[in-house]
């Protein structure tokens, strides 16, 4: 059977300079393949290198060595502007810190995401549809400060999903939430994969959430191993 990988890394290494001459290697030859339409989880302790890997996968950082292919294209050979385009049109992001624009309502936060991705369809219809999916139809006009942490994260997910990207990267999306809200978010991810056919790659260190992932990788000391 030919597997449909959305992204693939080949021997990706990442080092950071410490002081004038020394460097520290955070990723030590990562070989990863992420299947389209699945929820892939990267787990690992703090400092294991999972966020660095996620930054490389989401084209926020470039690998020091190795190759990174996204939808068959070599991202590691692309310019900053080309990376920006990939992120803008093909990727979605959910952050641990929620990071909704505080001066925009739930509706406007999603609208901003759509504007950024130059969404061609009926924006209003799409915003209402996606906020319906995350269960916030009635709170569309609320400002972030008027919502709970879980609700804010759902708006952030709606914003990440609205423009129908190929993939969503979520760095510790449940890290700032209580267990119930965390589980709600994970269920939402599963729901989105089902309804929208989007791939999700997320990092977490919460063992309770591992079972909800389709594929789980473990990062340890800059090396990756498949875990179930």
């Amino acid at each position, binding site marked *: 059977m030919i597997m449909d990988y959305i992204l693939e890394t080949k021997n990706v290494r990442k080092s950071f300079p410490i002081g004038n001459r020394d460097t520290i290697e955070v990723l030590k030859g990562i070989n990863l393949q992420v299947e389209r339409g699945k929820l892939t989880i990267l787990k690992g302790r703090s400092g294991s290198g999972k966020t660095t890997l996620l930054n490389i996968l989401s084209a926020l950082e470039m690998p020091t060595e190795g190759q990174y292919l996204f939808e068959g294209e070599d991202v590691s050979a692309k310019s900053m502007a080309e990376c920006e385009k990939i992120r803008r049109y093909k990727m979605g992001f959910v952050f641990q810190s929620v990071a909704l624009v505080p001066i*925009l309502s739930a509706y406007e936060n999603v609208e901003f995401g759509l504007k950024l991705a130059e969404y061609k369809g009926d924006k209003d219809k799409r915003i209402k549809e996606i906020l319906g999916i995350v269960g916030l139809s009635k709170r569309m006009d609320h400002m972030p400060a008027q919502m709970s942490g879980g609700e804010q994260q759902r708006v952030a997910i709606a914003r990440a999903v609205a423009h129908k990207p190929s993939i969503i990267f979520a760095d510790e999306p449940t890290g700032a939430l209580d267990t119930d809200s965390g589980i709600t978010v994970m269920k939402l991810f599963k729901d989105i994969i089902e309804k929208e056919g989007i791939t999700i790659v997320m990092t977490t260190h919460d063992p309770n959430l591992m079972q909800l992932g389709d594929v789980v990788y473990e990062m340890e000391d800059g090396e990756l191993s498949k875990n179930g």
Partner: protein
Amino acid sequence: MFRFIKNKIKNKKLLNFSLLTGVVLLTAFLCIYPMFREGSLNKLLRSMFVEHIGNEEEYPAVLSKNDSVVKVDGTEVADIISMLNSDKDKWGSQISIPIVQNQKVITSKGGAAETSFGEKTRLVLLGYIPDMYEYSDLVFGISAEEAYENGDETIKQAIGKGAYPCVISQKCMDSFNLVIGEELEYKPNAYDDSETVKFIVTGIIEEKTEDKFFYHKPLSDYYDTLFLSEKDFNSVIKSSPAKTIEYTNSVMIDYSVIEASDANAVSGRLKTITEADEKIECNFSATLDSYCEQESAVSVILIAFELPIVSLLLLFLYMISSRILEMETTEIAMLKSRGIKRAKIIKLYVMQSSLIAFAGCIIGLPAGFGMCKLAASTDAFLSFTMKDISIYKPTPMMLVFALGAFALSVLFMTLPVVVISKLTITERKTLRLTANSKPVWEKVFLDIILLGISGYLLFNYYRQQDVMAADIISGGAIDPVIFIDSSLFILACGLLVLRLSGYLVRLIYKIGKKRWKPASYIAFLQIIRGAKKQGFILVFLIMTIAMGIFNSNLARTVNENVENRTTYNDGADLRIEERWKMTVKKVDSDYIWSYKEPDFERFSDLGAVSKTRVIIDENTDILVNKKVEKGNTLMAINTKEFGETAILSGELNDRHWFEYLNALAKVPAGCLVSRNLATKYELKEGDKITYSRYTPLDKKVTYISAELVVCGVVDAFPGFESTYYELSEGGSLEEKQRFLVVANYTNIVNKCHQTPYSVWMKLPPQADASKVIDAINQKGLILKDTINLSEDIKNKQDSAMIQITNGMFSVGFVISLLICAVGFLIYWILTIRERELFYGIYRAMGMSMREIVKMLMTEQIFSSFLAVLSGFGVGMLTTVLFTKLLATVYLPQKHNLPIEMVIKGSDAVKIVAIICVTFLLCFVVMRRIIRNMNIAKALKMGED
């Protein structure tokens, strides 16, 4: 506790540095007040003494006593001098001010003299002035002492026959028609047949120009005195039947050391001296009294200029302090949750504020000294010069003001904590939820209310403008509200503009809501929803620019109007009047006087572009419709030369003034009359008027009356002021009108004989008039009067009030621009730092750096740039509405040149350049921060 505070300050270095800057500027600006006030008052006092010299032609600080001593056998001049010296020393110690000169005039009165040529008998005095020759020039002849040795044959013969040699003043020579070598017979008692004493005139004396003030009264006042040597005077009084010897003891004190702060005390000491002896007179009590009246005007104007800037600085401290506390709310909540009482938290912040305020005051004091010197060095708005500013000295009061700055700083830095420490966590959360609602001032329509108040005040001031001007002319205090009103108007307009620009941005946002690109979309919403937060800095920006524009225009208007009026009053670059010799001859029973015109060509090689003779008689009667107008001005001019030499703007009359000169040139017996005369008597071209002039021998007798034909009516003419002010009997100043008649020089000389004229000169651009005057003096010409235009302008613009205006406006602008820049920078650095996570997220979502910069630029254009533009608009509007009113405070007198508003593009360019440089620096800093931002790091920061 101290370490805790130290760490707190260290953690928010940037904000606490801004607070320190605010305190330094506040202390400095408050400390300017006592130093600038004292310097300005000293300047005012000095200028009043100098003005006294100009008006009264005498030394301005003289204590004098006119009295007599009873003559006893053996009374000699030396005894009287010794007594006068002891009086001088006594007054000196009583008044405690150094004496610079002491003039003693000893006279013997009661004689009548008859000249050898048989002229009319006149009463004369015999006089002796110690050290007279040291302070006088012998214009003609030799001194009385020298006459014994070096006199010519006539003199020696007369002395041989028992005549006493004497010298006389020029005026005495003119009045008695005396010549050198002329003998006079003197009867010690005019009304009996006592034995006569003979005198022979050996010389004519004049005051030395440089030692003019040795003489309390000018030598021209001694028109009836024969001055003898001490020896001769002793011998004459010995044989004189007069029982008394008169004296005048004049003590000139050093007015330049009278400090403004001592004026009241000196005035008091003078009163003690003059009340103790009725015969002692003081010629500067009036100056001191008038100074004391004007003293408050200086304080008022300084306070009026200080208030807006001090308010801005206090608001700045409050704003920064609130910003720090906003970031420390969690800390405060934590302290409260640990059971620390609110009072203790406030105490902690008071201590922190005190520490910053103390450091600020220490730096602020010398900064205030520097700023005061800077303010004193200005000669226009933002024009700093290297002129002598030594009159501005630090005063102990600066410490008191620094203490005041300390207290105010602590209060305004701690006020926000009093509010914040009261709130619980829940209340704070609720407050944050409403943070995007309208600011309080917008809800209560503060802008409209303030605009109404300032508009009403402005309307009232315009209505009472004439009353106000009259009050200022009579020495009344200036109402400070008139200045504060303009600041109030600017604040009101600033707030209104902010409200309106909010509506404008909302409208623009709504119009293109669907089409806005992400950067513009976020930028517009940021402006609309962050208005409350950003409003403060924008009002700051609008006020700084508006005040800068208005202040520069007001200062420019005042400076230029003062210059224009001085130029108009002087009429030419240089005017000099030479002392002419008059000869009087008796024909039958009449005295025939004549003046000999000095050689006019002596003025040819002085480097003047053009020169002309101008006869000005300010005591001419004008007869119109059988009604006589007394005490008016007759000017006799050579039209062509006058047109080439005199200065007058072409727009002040209905036609260019050259056309009037041409019209006059065509009619030899023609004249131009001033508008006020033409209006009063409904004069028109072709009408006839008659003028009459008075003989120089008697100011009550006219010697000529002639007719002139009106060939033009002028509103303005070089050197002619139609309005003047005179003290009425009731002590108030009365506005009076003076009329002008300008006639052809040849016609007037033909009709009235040759009379002294002044020489008007046009100098090349950049020429130094004082060098021309020096050259004239070197030629040995004795000048009666000199009018140096550039010197007059410099003196006028150096007056205390104008100096305060130029200085305070300039320093105020620099300070407000500085706090504006610091405030702006701090606001944006903090805002960018606050948004760093979001910029990281935007970048992560694929937004390019260019888009982020565009987003910031859009935000700047519709907030800061709009504020800058609005500031200019508000500044110009304030200029149009307030400038003429405020300029009246500086130039309250009615004048042929009405106050004109002066707006110069170069001033606006200067302000724009300064603002552009400041904000360019701010943008460079902002761009640097954004450029150095690492997306991944920014996202991490968010997680933290």
